[in-house]
C-alpha cells in the first residue's frame, strides 16, 4: 500500500534556480526512508514539498489523495515535520503549549490534547518539563520537545530534517532509540550516513534535484564509485577495517 506517491515533482526557487527536477517515487505505509545527498541536492525542498509548504509542479498523492493548495491544510493533519532548527518550531511560552499546539485542529478537546501532550513528553523522558519555557532548555532537550510535538500528533507520515545535527553522540543514540519506537511512515533527510544505516530500510540518493538511485542503504552507501561521484563518502562502518583479513 503506497502511502506517498510522487510523480514528476519539480520546484524552482523564487530566483529561478531549479531545486527539484521531475522526481518520481512511491513510499509504502510504514516504510523508513532516508534522503541523502550533498548540500544543495534538494533534500529540504523535497520534505517541504511533501508537506505542501511549497508551490510545486507535478503530483503528490498522500493516502491516494492528490495534494493541492486547497486540501493541503487537511492533508497536513496526517503529517508531522521535525525541523532542522528547534528554535523555529518552538514558539509558545511553555513546553506543554508547544507540544499541544494545533492538536485541537485534529479534533481533540483540551483535556485529550493535554493527555496526548503529556504522554508524548514522557516518551521523550521529559516528564515534569510541562511548564518550562523552551529558551531555558539545553539544545538536546529542545530537540526532544520537537520530537514530542510530532509524537503527540500520531501522524501517518513524519518528516525529519537533519535530526542528528548538533547532537552529541549520546543525544544521537537517544534519537535513534526513539526513532525505532515511533510508528508510521518516516522520511529523514540527513548527512549522517551512519544514522541512515541505523534507522532506515531504504534510501533515496538525491543530487542536483534528481533521484540518482533508490534502494537499500548498505548497497548504495557501500558503492565507493557512486558515493564519490556525488560528493559523498562510504561510511566507516561499511568500509573494511585496515587490519581485517
Amino acid at each position: 500500500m503506497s502511502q506517498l506517491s510522487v510523480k514528476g515533482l519539480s520546484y524552482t526557487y523564487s530566483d529561478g534556480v531549479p531545486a527539484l527536477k521531475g522526481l518520481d517515487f512511491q513510499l509504502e505505509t510504514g516504510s523508513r526512508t532516508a534522503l541523502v545527498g550533498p548540500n544543495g541536492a534538494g533534500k529540504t525542498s523535497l520534505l517541504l514539498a511533501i508537506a505542501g509548504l511549497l508551490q510545486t509542479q507535478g503530483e503528490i498523492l498522500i493516502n491516494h489523495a492528490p495534494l493541492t493548495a486547497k486540501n493541503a491544510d487537511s492533508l497536513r493533519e496526517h503529517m508531522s515535520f521535525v525541523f532542522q532548527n528547534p528554535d523555529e518550531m518552538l514558539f509558545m511560552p511553555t513546553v506543554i503549549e508547544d507540544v499541544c499546539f494545533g492538536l485541537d485542529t485534529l479534533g481533540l478537546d483540551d483535556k485529550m490534547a493535554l493527555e496526548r501532550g503529556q504522554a508524548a513528553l514522557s516518551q521523550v523522558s521529559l516528564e515534569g518539563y510541562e511548564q518550562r519555557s523552551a529558551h531555558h532548555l539545553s539544545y538536546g532537550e529542545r530537540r526532544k520537545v520537537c520530537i514530542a510535538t510530532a509524537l503527540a500528533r500520531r501522524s501517518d507520515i513524519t518528516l525529519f530534517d537533519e535530526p542528528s545535527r548538533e547532537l552529541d553522540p549520546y543525544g544521537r543514540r537517544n534519537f535513534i532509540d526513539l526513532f525505532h519506537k515511533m510508528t508510521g511512515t518516516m522520511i529523514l533527510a540527513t548527512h549522517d550516513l551512519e544514522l541512515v544505516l541505523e534507522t532506515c530500510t531504504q534510501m533515496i540518493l538525491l543530487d542536483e534535484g534528481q533521484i540518482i538511485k533508490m534502494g537499500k542503504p548498505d548497497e548504495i552507501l557501500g558503492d565507493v564509485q557512486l558515493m564519490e561521484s556525488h560528493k559523498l563518502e562510504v561510511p566507516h562502518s561499511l568500509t573494511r577495517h585496515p587490519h581485517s583479513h
Partner: protein
Amino acid sequence: MNHAFIDRYSRLDSPLHKRSPATKILGVSVCLIALLFVIPLLNPPQIWAGLLIYSAIMVLITLSSSVPFSFLLSRSALVLPFSVLIVFVNYVSGNFSFAQMIETTVKSLLSIFTLLLLTSTTPFHEILKQLSRWGTPRLFIIILSFMYRYFFLLMGEIEALERAVHMRHSSVSGWKRIRVYTNMIGMLLVRSYERAEHVYQAMQMRGFTGDFP
C-alpha cells in the same frame, strides 16, 4: 546585561508567588494609582507620611516574597540617571526645588519597585494569560508572546556578532563603528525575516490557518 534573567525570581516558591496573577496585577495597579495619583493630592507633610506608609507596605510585601531586596533596589536605581538629568536641567535654569525633586525621585523608585514585585513573582506568560482573559486583543498578546520568546535568541545572536567583531577588530570607533553596527543590525533583520518564514511553516504544519488559540 542580565538579559537571560529578566524574570529570574519569578519561579520561586513563596506566599506571594502562589497568589493568582489576577490578584497581583490588580494589586499593583491599585498601588500605582494610589502612589502616583492619590498621594500627590495630599498636603506636603501628608505626602511624606503617605510615601513612608507606602514604603512600609512594600517592605512587608517583599518580606513575604523571598525576592532579595538587593535585586529590587539595584533594579529600581535604574531611574536615577533620569532624575539626575532633570535635576541638572532645573539647576541650570535656576528653577530648582530640592524637595520636589526628592519627592519625584522617591515616587519613581517606589513605582519601579512595585512593578518589580509583580514581574519577580509572576512568570511573564502568566501575566499575558491573565491579560488575555481580561479581553486584551488577541493580536497584541500574540505579538507580545513571540517577542518574549525570540528576544533571548536575538540577544544571543547579537552577542555572537559582537564577539566576532572583537575577535577581528581591536578598536572600532567613529564612522566605522556606525557602519559595522548597522551592518550587524541589517544582518540580524535579514535573519529575523527568514526565521519568521520558517516559524510560520512550522505553525502551518501543526494546523495553524490564522486563528490563534
